[in-house]
């Protein structure tokens, strides 16, 4: 299939070149080098796990952008196992693809491996959750800034000035994941200036909705006057929302995620109160652009470090539109 596609592309290129000649018009001077830059290239993708909106969305976006150009796109699925992911990257380093796209489970585990990959002549693109080692490209949310904005939202919603208790709880993902570490930093920056907001619980649910539910149920029972919970991922916060629903309390649930249709549905039916959205198809596009850039330039991996922060969107029931969320491509 891929071979067929490659042939088709090269045939189209040839045909295009031929017809251009025939018309005796002016050749686009970047056209041939553009397609040449991608022929036979290989991009490998190592997410934390497949099977949820973010990673599936990135995969779909990258595949759509790259495969028509003749780039081979491989997925290595460690299925929530850091060790398996490390094994996959180690194996990839010896297989030498042209680009590795990595979604880090935490800031430390892959750092040395990514460095080694760059030294081996492989471009490394990190998406959304970065490691402590900066590689060629990082595409994802500015978590410190995001944390500050979330902190501000908590202050806005729960301030005792508005008659609220000022008690908030945070459900992190994996503590050492970039999303947790940097976001906490941002939130702390804000909350430290607002002593009226009390952080009554700050625990890690490891991206697991069952754990999140247990934690939330406990916290709500301990603090019946809890004002808000902010969770670091919408899929996990389904559990938090269930705990809130079970308790029958009115707790403001501020979540975040990739802006899948599920988020809009849950905002609409009141499961979530608000969600911070980093638009996944946009991130996929950014990555694809950067990969194209790198492949065309041919510079040595590791020579430049580019960061592209994704624009953030604070969605609520009131400000969302049909276009605010995206649908999973049907082929999954």
């Amino acid at each position: 299939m891929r071979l067929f596609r490659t042939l088709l592309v090269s045939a189209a290129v040839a045909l295009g070149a031929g017809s251009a000649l025939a018309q005796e018009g002016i050749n686009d001077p970047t056209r041939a080098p553009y397609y040449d830059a991608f022929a036979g290239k290989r991009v490998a993708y190592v997410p934390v796990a497949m099977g949820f909106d973010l990673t599936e969305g990135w995969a779909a976006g990258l595949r759509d952008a790259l495969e028509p150009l003749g780039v081979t796109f491989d997925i290595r699925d460690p299925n929530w196992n850091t060790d398996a992911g490390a094994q996959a990257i180690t194996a990839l380093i010896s297989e030498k693809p042209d680009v590795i796209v990595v979604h880090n489970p935490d800031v430390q585990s892959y750092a040395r491996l990514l460095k080694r990959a760059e030294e081996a002549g492989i471009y490394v693109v990190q998406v959304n959750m970065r490691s402590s080692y900066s590689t060629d490209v990082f595409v994802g949310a500015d978590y410190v800034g995001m944390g500050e904005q979330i902190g501000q939202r908590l202050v806005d919603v729960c301030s005792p000035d508005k008659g609220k208790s000022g008690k908030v709880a945070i459900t992190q993902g994996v503590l050492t994941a970039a999303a947790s570490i940097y976001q906490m930093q941002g939130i702390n920056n804000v909350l430290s200036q607002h002593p009226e907001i009390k952080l009554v619980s700050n625990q890690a649910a490891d991206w697991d909705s069952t754990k999140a539910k247990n934690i939330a149920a406990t916290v709500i029972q301990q603090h019946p006057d809890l004002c808000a919970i902010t969770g670091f991922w919408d899929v996990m916060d389904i559990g938090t929302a269930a705990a809130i629903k079970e308790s029958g309390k009115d707790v403001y649930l501020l979540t975040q995620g990739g802006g899948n249709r599920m988020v809009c549905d849950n905002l609409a039916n009141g499961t979530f109160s608000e969600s911070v959205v980093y638009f996944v198809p946009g991130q996929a596009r950014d990555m694809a652009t950067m990969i194209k850039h790198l492949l065309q330039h041919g510079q040595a991996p590791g020579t430049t470090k580019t960061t592209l922060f994704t624009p953030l969107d604070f969605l609520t029931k009131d400000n969302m539109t049909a276009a605010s969320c995206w649908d999973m491509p049907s082929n999954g």
Partner: protein
Amino acid sequence: MSSMGRLSQEQIVFGLALLLCAGFALALPGFLTTNNVLNLVRSVSILGILGVAMGLVVIGRGIDLSLVALMAISVAWTLNLIGGGMPIAQAMLIGLAFSLIVGAINGWLVAYAEIPAIFATLAMGTLIYGFGRYFLFSLDVAYMPERANSLLWLGQGTLLGVPVPIFIFAAVCLAGYLFLRYAKSGRYVRAVGDNILAARITGIPVRPIVVQQYVMSALIGYLAGIVTAASVASMNTRLALSTYVYDVILVVVLGGIGLSGGKGGIRNVIVGTLLIGILLNGMTIMDIQYTVQNVVKGALLLTAIVIDTIVNPRDEQTAQQGDI
């Protein structure tokens, strides 16, 4: 168990639960309120339902490590089918049928292929999860579609002021009790668990009984899954890979159903479930952190097992070989 002076594990655990209950009631204001007690039972009712399923298998000297995986996958598939536009009843029937068939396969592997239950079901758990994720649906989490909101009542509704899951737990317990007490095949389960060779010689159809255990466990597991999905409005299939099934085993064994089979009944499951419920609830009110709760829970479970062993010591001469 001799009746004089010797306490069975069930009695120890029950005593421990009462002790804790009394302690919490005295020390924690708000523990003995109706609301809190209902909350307590509701929070463990799904665990309890699964406990009954596991209990039936363990009494028959088996173990079903695929219980949670099967529950997660079959219910997630049901939700996906409903989401795809299938009528709710039809989707549920398909999910149930899938669950029962897999249960029968479990039983066949144990009874006819004679693979040790612990491995057959361990492998089946992984296999079911993989099968579901590979063939049935591709996303980790299946959400309850809008259309199926009528199902939510099972998990979130109340009847006479009491949450529905508690009623379901009670109904499952009653059904399990009646089955073990009065159904012929229910009494056979205990006979098979107590001494499979003797049961075979007596003329009990040992293998079909074993298959029946696993089918029943799958059936009850599916029910528990529907309640779970209804209360969280979704089904997370990663549950299949979690250690949740260990919690279920703990409930069962803690209540006094020996892993070597033949002993115990539904009462033991209830006692075990209540102890866990009281423990978690009390610790929550005492504002103990989630991770610390696990340590305390574990330590208390260990204490219960140690007390049981000291009161009912096992002897080098009478210990069963290969009984781990």
